[in-house]
């Protein structure tokens, strides 16, 4: 049976690991990216996502040398995003061992790009980041070109595009640690047929129980809960397991030579 995945989402400012609240531009610094990757690898997390969240805004490329150091610490799948603008950018990330790339701004600006990318590298390694913001009672696609794009319109338009997974983040709940936006997840899971990673709002194990009992989601991203509370990915797996959803519990028994 396919297991529910717990995925730490490392957000990087260009200088350090940071954690935002509601995507505001004054994030809190939370540590060193390579060190964090090392810890999460030792904790046998199911996957890791690393995003350089200001690369596109600052019109710079992601630091490949640092990404390489992060990937070198990881013996689980890693998805990398931030500032991806060309097919070469994707090639460079996959060549140093990224398993997937996360695309957002480039897709909003030019939806054709993702088709080219999927034709070249296979749709499985293309992850689409969808950041949803709730204004009054409606959801919109959060974007830096300040276009007002209703989320439902956007989701219907992308149904034929080729990508292997989405990361769905609630901007309103980002960093607030007050629980996931269940309504948003229920809306999106009906429309999107690829695996969905839900993120934004994780604060305690009860939030995971709520998400996994009220939706059919198989993957969750989280960050603040790992930085600011005592809970580990293992604690959250026990919570998910308590609502009868399958998780991967690793027994440490195999020690490699090196």
């Amino acid at each position: 049976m396919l297991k529910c995945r717990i995925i730490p989402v490392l957000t990087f400012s260009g200088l350090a690991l940071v954690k935002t609240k509601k995507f505001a531009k004054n994030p809190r610094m939370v540590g060193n990216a390579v060190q964090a990757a090392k810890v999460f690898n030792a904790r046998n997390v199911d996957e890791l996502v690393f995003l350089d969240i200001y690369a596109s805004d600052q019109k710079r490329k992601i630091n490949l040398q640092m990404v390489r150091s992060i990937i070198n610490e990881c013996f689980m799948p890693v998805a990398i995003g931030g500032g991806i603008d060309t097919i070469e950018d994707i090639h460079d990330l996959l060549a140093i061992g990224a398993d997937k790339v996360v695309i957002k701004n480039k897709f909003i600006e030019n939806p054709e790009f993702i088709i080219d990318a999927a034709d070249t590298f296979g749709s499985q390694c293309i992850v689409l980041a969808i950041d949803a913001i709730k204004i009054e009672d409606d959801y919109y696609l959060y974007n830096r070109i300040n276009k007002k794009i209703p989320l439902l319109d956007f989701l219907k338009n992308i149904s034929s595009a080729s990508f292997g997974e989405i990361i769905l983040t609630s901007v309103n709940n980002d960093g607030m640690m007050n629980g996931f936006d269940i309504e948003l997840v229920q809306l999106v899971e009906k429309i999107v047929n690829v695996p969905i990673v839900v993120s934004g709002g994780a604060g305690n194990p009860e939030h995971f129980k709520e998400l996994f009992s009220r939706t059919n989601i198989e993957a969750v991203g989280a960050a603040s809960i790992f930085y600011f509370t005592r809970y580990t990915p293992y604690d959250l797996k026990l919570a998910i397991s308590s609502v009868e959803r399958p998780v991967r519990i690793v027994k440490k028994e195999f020690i490699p030579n090196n």
Partner: protein
Amino acid sequence: MNIAIIKYGMGNATSVQKTLKKLGYLSVITEDHKEIEQSDFIILPGVGSFAAGMENLHKSGLANLLTREVVFKKKPFMGICLGMQLLATYGNEPYKCLGLGWIDGEVIKIESSQNLRIPHLGWDNVEVTENNSNFYKEFDNLDYYFIHSYHFLVKNQKDVVLKVTYDISMVAAIQKDNIYAMQFHPEKSQDAGMKLLKKIIDQYA
């Protein structure tokens, strides 16, 4: 022991090399025919589409070289993900085309009657079959990392050593004499993956 990881423009060679290094094996990522001929063990990794993979193998003359080394000279071989699928008689991604044809069968799109999400993506437990189960039984029910939208319909069930169930039962790993192959990514499956890689390669070390 010299391990050659085949470079043919289809993805995850670096990850495979990193995991082998962690296990203490030296390997080269190469497309050089001489280097491949001199190796003791060949690994064909791969991510991407079947047709593109075959095209790249033919373009560089690697398809013939690999068939000579593995099928005729019986050099130990491991295929991973697309590197497993390419062993089939036919593939269908994105159109029907010939594979290497070492293992009878066809690679087809996963169709789920229960509307499960495609690709089959994430950690899933494998089940041993009755074939060579003494070797594989310690891996029964371990979780491995899968990411694929197509699966290998193998004609001779005796070639199948591990299976996985995602609505339908699918091939997770194959073994036919010196040919080992898996649909999942052992190089991305942490301890469970390393344990399997080590057990297979150590037989030839």
